[in-house]
């Protein structure tokens, strides 16, 4: 796969430490503050007591590291009468994200492979339809898909929400793999054909090992996308499987009486941790996913 960023920048070469150069670093620092400040405020506030929060010094560090808001956010914060914290949502999100990511990546890989190398009749039409399909707003699908999953007995179930994620992940994953396979020399495929290998044999022993980078990229994009989803989880997961994002929003918005900002912010940070860790660990792969998948809406 082509690296979207060559090892060094291509912009104009700097001429020593000039005034514009200082201005440039000034701009970068201001921008970095703008992007980091909200996260900083969230993290420090989650360690403060409510008295400290009311003192209205959001940029100040907490007097002491008080983890009580974190444990409350994790295990006992209330959404209405439901006082389970975000932990239930966390495990629901894990149960949704893992199978949905694996299935949608595999489906995208198989579909992209068939479209790229085998091209049975109708392939062009199918790929065009998948590309266009990626742009259709989810609101169009909701009522019929609710009806459909209900008829199949999958509405408000774990299997239902996983299926829905696989369905709506199809455009992105297919596009990623189809474009990736287009960069693999077709001679490789032809040689395998001459050796007598069939569709699945070539896929499993040749293409899958070759597409390890794209398996990582697509897996990463799907994982963060599914973890961060709110709309589908809200509609299809059902009360017993609500993902973390939905539960977080319920906890924050249904509070009655005093708002415990420290608990709410700890819960928010907890919800953000999984995609953030994925982002910081994967770095470059995440960027590749964005540039490779940017054809989709």
């Amino acid at each position: 796969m082509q690296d979207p960023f060559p090892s060094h920048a291509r912009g104009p070469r700097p001429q020593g430490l000039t005034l514009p150069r200082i201005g440039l670093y000034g701009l970068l620092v201001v921008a970095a503050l703008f992007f980091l400040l909200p996260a900083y405020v969230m993290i420090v506030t989650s360690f403060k007591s409510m008295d400290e929060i009311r003192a209205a010094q959001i940029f100040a560090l907490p007097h002491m590291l008080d983890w009580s808001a974190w444990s409350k956010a994790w295990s006992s914060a209330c959404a209405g009468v439901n006082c389970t914290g975000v932990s239930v949502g966390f495990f629901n999100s894990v149960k949704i994200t893992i199978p949905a990511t694996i299935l949608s990546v595999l489906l995208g890989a198989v579909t992209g492979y068939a479209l790229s190398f085998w091209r049975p009749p109708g392939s062009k039409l199918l790929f065009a339809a998948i590309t266009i399909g990626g742009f259709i707003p989810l609101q169009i699908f909701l009522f019929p898909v609710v009806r459909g999953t209900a008829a199949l007995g999958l509405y408000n179930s774990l299997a239902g929400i996983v299926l829905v994620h696989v369905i709506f992940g199809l455009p992105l994953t297919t596009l990623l793999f189809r474009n990736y396979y287009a960069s693999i020399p077709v001679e490789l495929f032809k040689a395998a054909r001459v050796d007598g290998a069939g569709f699945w044999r070539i896929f499993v022993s040749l293409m899958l090992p070759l597409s390890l980078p794209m398996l990582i990229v697509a897996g990463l994009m799907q994982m963060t996308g599914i973890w961060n989803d709110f709309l589908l989880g809200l509609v299809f997961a059902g009360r017993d499987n609500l993902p973390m994002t939905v539960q977080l929003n319920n906890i924050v918005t249904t509070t009655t009486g005093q708002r415990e900002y420290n608990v709410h912010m700890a819960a928010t940070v907890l919800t953000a941790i999984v995609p953030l860790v994925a982002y910081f660990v994967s770095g470059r792969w995440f960027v590749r996913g964005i540039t490779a998948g940017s054809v989709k809406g």
Partner: protein
Amino acid sequence: MADPSAARSPASGPARSGATGRLRLPVAALAALAPAWLIILVVYLGTTVWTVQLSLTNSRMLPSNEFAGLAQYQRLFGTARWSISIHNLVTFGIVYVLGALVVGSLLAIAVDRRVRFESMWRTVFLYPYALSFIVTGLMWQWLMNPEIGIQATMRAAGLGWFTFDWTTRPDMAIYAVSLAGIWQSAGLVMVLMLAGLRGIDADLWRATRIEGIPMWRTYLTIVLPQLGPSLATAFMLLTMGAVRTFDLVVALTNGGPGQSTEVPAKFIMDSLFARQDLGLATAGATVMLVTVMAIAVPILYARDIWARRRSGRL
């Protein structure tokens, strides 16, 4: 992004390539594509047809088959909340898309100018894009909360005039949503623009320096036009995102104060589930679909021509 299929001549389709010496239908490949066909035909096409069809009936709480022409659309555009939602979306869309494009492009140019710790800056600017809109919305809700947020801090520090209470003001709340959206998406634009900037000939800078052309003019008149495809991609992704905006509003303002941040996607969701008005919901969704397609199809088409022209030249 070049069309990858252009790299391979259409006649080299392996099924007909003669590698096996026989002309036969690749049954396994057809079977492997069956799930994709099923999803496309049943879910994408089938439900779209169903939704559009429902919008042309007199359905209310329950689906009905009685054809009603454009009555639901008349009712939709006669609903004040829908008109307000559209109006809000236009304001939000313009501020959010332009804001993210400008901020993201500036960041890309800054990062591209051989700065130290380039990957650190990039990481900092892009991380919000990995977050859920719910997380982003809640973060900014608290920052703009007049009692505990930035305003309270500044006033406690003696700056009594300082005001940052957009989420509580009907005239400013939509800009609060835009600001949070820009914060989340500027990094995406930076990544796309940076990928474009890296494709620009390094000799350009030496040439313009010799010619004495100022930096800003080089960027504006020479570099920017070359970034057309990157800009088009960023514009399309942002616009699509703007039209679909739902979770960000739910977490940040929940449509308020009053109806000042109601948006069409939320209107449709509320019509569907809270008010159970199927006719309004499906008509609204159809309007959304037409809007999205009117924006996406021409851009997709233009980019396709671009890619073909480029690969034809090479």
